[in-house]
């Protein structure tokens, strides 16, 4: 029972981080129908920039994280303008491959500056443990949960009430109709990419805080695919729920069936979900016509 409680808590907290990463995926997909294979590398860049500001230059962490967020917005805008915009309307494989190429470039950029060996992250997130019964949760995970919750509320409100949020939903629904209603689709894409980049950078900081800064941070980008597929590629509540479910699944299989299995079970689940519900739990079912 104790083990179960601990595993549940671990699963939930890891799930919160997954959800955070998945949010970025969903945001970009929702606005522009692009699946971003470089999302993991956005995390990596965010983690390393914060590391450079706080760990190497010794800036206070508030300033460091703020500057990281500013740079992340810039990165998102640059990527959207120079890499994705020329490919609007191109086949899916081109869009997939361009984000893969981007991922390769970002990774080369990071490792040519900071090398490939892992380094400890500057400990600015308070390091204490919260005990619930016999189970232990580290503080950084709690921050991840709180951050995920805050972002979820902000995004939900943003999509429901703000002018830009509604415009983004309209764009996702039908680009041409949105254009004819006077929405600037270009601005919407730029907005989506910069928000996604900021979310990814924050998630990167949290992940690096747990495992240190190294290329491994980018690997979480792949592990999030089962999450977004389970929840549905275009559903924000789906991303949150998917994150938690996959987090729990990894924790339980890791705890009860051996740690090796926890890497592969989410992918087996992914294939099964795709076979039964191709659009995930909350994804919008699209009807195709010739």
């Amino acid at each position, binding site marked *: 029972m104790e083990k179960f409680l601990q595993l549940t808590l671990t699963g939930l907290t890891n799930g919160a981080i997954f959800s955070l990463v998945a949010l970025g995926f969903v945001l970009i997909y929702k606005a522009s129908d692009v699946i971003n294979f470089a999302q993991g590398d956005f995390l990596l860049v965010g983690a390393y920039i914060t590391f450079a500001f706080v760990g190497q230059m010794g800036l206070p962490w508030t300033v460091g994280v703020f500057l990281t967020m500013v740079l992340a917005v810039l990165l998102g805008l640059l990527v959207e303008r120079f890499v994705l915009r020329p490919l609007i309307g191109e086949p899916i494989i081109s869009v997939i491959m361009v984000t893969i190429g981007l*991922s390769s470039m970002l990774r080369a950029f990071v490792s040519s500056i900071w090398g490939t060996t892992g380094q400890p992250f500057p400990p600015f997130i308070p390091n204490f443990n919260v005990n619930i019964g016999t189970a232990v949760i580290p503080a950084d995970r709690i921050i991840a949960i709180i951050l995920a919750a805050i972002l979820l509320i902000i995004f939900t409100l943003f999509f429901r009430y703000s002018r830009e949020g509604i415009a983004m939903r309209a764009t996702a629904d039908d680009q041409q109709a949105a254009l004819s209603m006077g929405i600037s689709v270009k601005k919407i894409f730029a907005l989506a990419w910069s928000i996604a980049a900021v979310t990814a950078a924050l998630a990167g900081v949290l992940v690096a805080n747990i495992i240190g800064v190294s290329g491994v941070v980018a690997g979480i980008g792949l592990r999030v695919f089962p999450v977004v597929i389970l929840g549905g590629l275009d559903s924000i509540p789906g991303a949150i729920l998917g994150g938690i479910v996959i987090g729990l699944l990894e924790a339980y299989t890791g705890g009860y069936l051996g740690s090796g299995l926890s890497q592969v079970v989410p992918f087996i689940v992914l294939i099964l979900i795709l076979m039964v519900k191709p659009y995930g739990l909350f994804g919008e079912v699209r009807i195709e016509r010739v």
Partner: protein
Amino acid sequence: MESGIFHTTYESDMALRRTPLMRLRLILVIAAALIFPFLANGYQLTLANQIGITAIGAIGLNILTGFTGQISLGQGAFMAVGAYSSGLLAARLGMPWWLTLPFSCIITAVVGAIFGIPSLRLKGLYLAIATLAAQQIIEWLITHWTVLTGGVEALVVPTPTLFGIRMNDDFNFYWIMLLLLSATTLFAVNLFRTKIGRAFIAIRDQDIAAEVMGVNTFQYKLLAFATSSFFVGLSGALVAQYRNIVNYERFTIETSILYLAVIIIGGLGSVSGSIYGSVFMVLLPAILTNLGRALGGVIPGMSRLIPFIQQGVFGITIILFLIFEPEGLAKIWRDIKDYFRLWPFSY
């Protein structure tokens, strides 16, 4: 300058090479391929063999992704299946190397068809992610099914010999590679002149319309997965025999991405494009390495940067090709030919 091509018989109209110039080019290419190993040194032969193996795998992937439109991120895993079946059949059962090749092709074709089943309901992005899952699952099986594969330890394959001659030195292997590459190319080129190949293309262009016109989409998609995996398996088996050693690290998701890059840069839906792409993607890192070494004396710390430069250039090449020439090297070559064919009245 020509005014048009006029055929007077069905044979000449349906031939693969329809003009004297095309036939001349083919003869020149064949002659060059036959003379090359006698002139090249060991390093160049190694590169040529790598290009050949990559080209066979790329033609396989192009059948699935370029011609049938099913994006696969599982190429690395399917190559691993081919390599491990060839290696295990030779090492554990003592099968001669040439007999392991057809077996490993068939095994890979079956595995490919199994992982093609999700294509019944999925397409595009979702199918790409399903094949990504296939990659992860197969990779996991290889590293954890230790009894069969030896896990993360490398599998040592007995040296392939024929009549007592070692076949996997660079010179002898070149001929095997050339034979199999020619057979693969010939098969692939002719495949798209048959009913099956045309069905593949119909599925790529508009799957719903194809189904309405009587193409059994699911059956043909599975067939595409199997045909493609057959050649991918052959490529993997050749890697195993050529290197004498099989290691899962050679067949990760990076490999899948590399092959997708090969067919995009070469030209999606073009058999010759797959070969151009392989030449480009094998030579690019080799040239960068040599360039980096040459500059090593001039710029300090250059040798440390080589792998990152390779990675960065790899990424930027993909992006530039997708933005400026999405149809790849095959299109560039076609444009060059057209320019000279119609010169000086090229409008």
